[in-house]
């Protein structure tokens, strides 16, 4: 019951969050130590903006071969962006909170 509510809330957030804010731009929020979406379909050169809507710090990074990166410490309220540089599957994690996982599928 709780779980399905949380799931419904998550789906709600997901729709709110994935709506492109401009052509080729995506917004992903960090809320309750989770990414607001679990998956994204994007294209090379799109940008993804990560906004920390939590009360705690995050540290987003990826070890994917296609585009490894580390955004470093991100305080509450801060937004950081990446530009998708290469096609493939980008697994995005938070170094602090191992439960946070996001897959970005990047098409040409």
């Amino acid at each position: 019951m709780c779980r399905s509510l949380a799931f419904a809330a998550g789906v709600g957030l997901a729709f709110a969050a994935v709506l492109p804010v401009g052509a080729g731009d995506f917004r992903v929020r960090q809320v309750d130590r989770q990414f607001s979406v679990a998956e994204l379909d994007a294209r090379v050169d799109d940008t993804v903006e990560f906004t920390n809507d939590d009360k705690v710090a995050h540290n987003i990074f990826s070890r994917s071969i296609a585009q490894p990166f580390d955004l470093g410490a991100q305080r509450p309220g801060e937004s950081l962006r990446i530009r998708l540089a290469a096609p493939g599957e980008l697994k995005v994690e938070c170094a602090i909170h191992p439960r946070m996982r996001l897959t970005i599928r990047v098409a040409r």
Partner: protein
Amino acid sequence: MTNKRIALALALAAFAGACAPPPQKATYDAKQTETMAAYRRVKEIPFDKANPFSKEKADLGYALFFDPRLGHENSVSCATCHVPALGWGDAFPKSPATLGRTTPRHSPGIANLAWDELYFWDGRVDTLEAQMLAAVAGPSMNTPLPDLEKKLRAIPGYAPLFAKAFPGTAEPITSANVAKAIAVYERTVVSGRAPFDAWIEGDESAISDDAKQGFWLFTGKANCAACHNTWRFTDGSFHDIGLPGEDPGRGRLLTSIAKMKQAFKTPSLRDVSLSAPYFHDGSVGTLLDVINHYEKGGIKRPSLSEDMKAVALSREDKRNLLAFLSTLTSAEPPVRAPRLP
């Protein structure tokens, strides 16, 4: 119920209301109520799909966890360093291991781990099954896995237990199955109900006013809840809290991430009164000294968590925090060692 009976009941209720002291009524605002709800115990244990719960596996794991024959010269069990009465940890800063060695880190409690993603202080393995195999084959117990299987096959009482736990296999006594049984048992190890839980569920008399003040400090000014959240009092995550020492912690695995240098997994604070000494190196002996560390905010260095900040705590604040932490300890009797096969 007849009308007469209802009337009588109402009269009695009115009478009781008039004589008894007014019931303690808690008034919490919406934000406080929400904070309290976030610490309510959950009922269901998340087991691993690849290794689902069965009573047979849990019972077998219970025996294996406490059996010293798994260790070097039949002399050391998991429970040697994970003692139920000591919050499932032990009382050494670093534990005596096999062949005169000492464990490089303090033995952590193993309760409430079914909810974690990563294991060991530095998160170097991602399942309890893998963790168990590392413990038994490593310096803690020094039993290579082929030897483990040989030893267990030589104990006649184990054969039927393994056969029941892993039916339909020709040779169920394998190290992989030992790991599965112990991991299932470990997932069932959940800290007992504590006075704090009774308070969260509405019993205002379950904990003192000092302890309640301590909880509001913990979730407020002192910022402990930035990392010690949920009913387990942990985020299962990795932070450098600015302790002295050289141990690279999670930084040894995530070498390129500055914030992971000297970061360790947040421990649960359930039964924390029982599990001294504290921290990954067992360097701090009392909860007051733990609080004194947080008051100063830890060593300032690039890896220090953004959520670590010095905080002014009065003597009364510290007393309240300690009172609160003590309400997380259950009065339930510790798990006892089982009969071994």
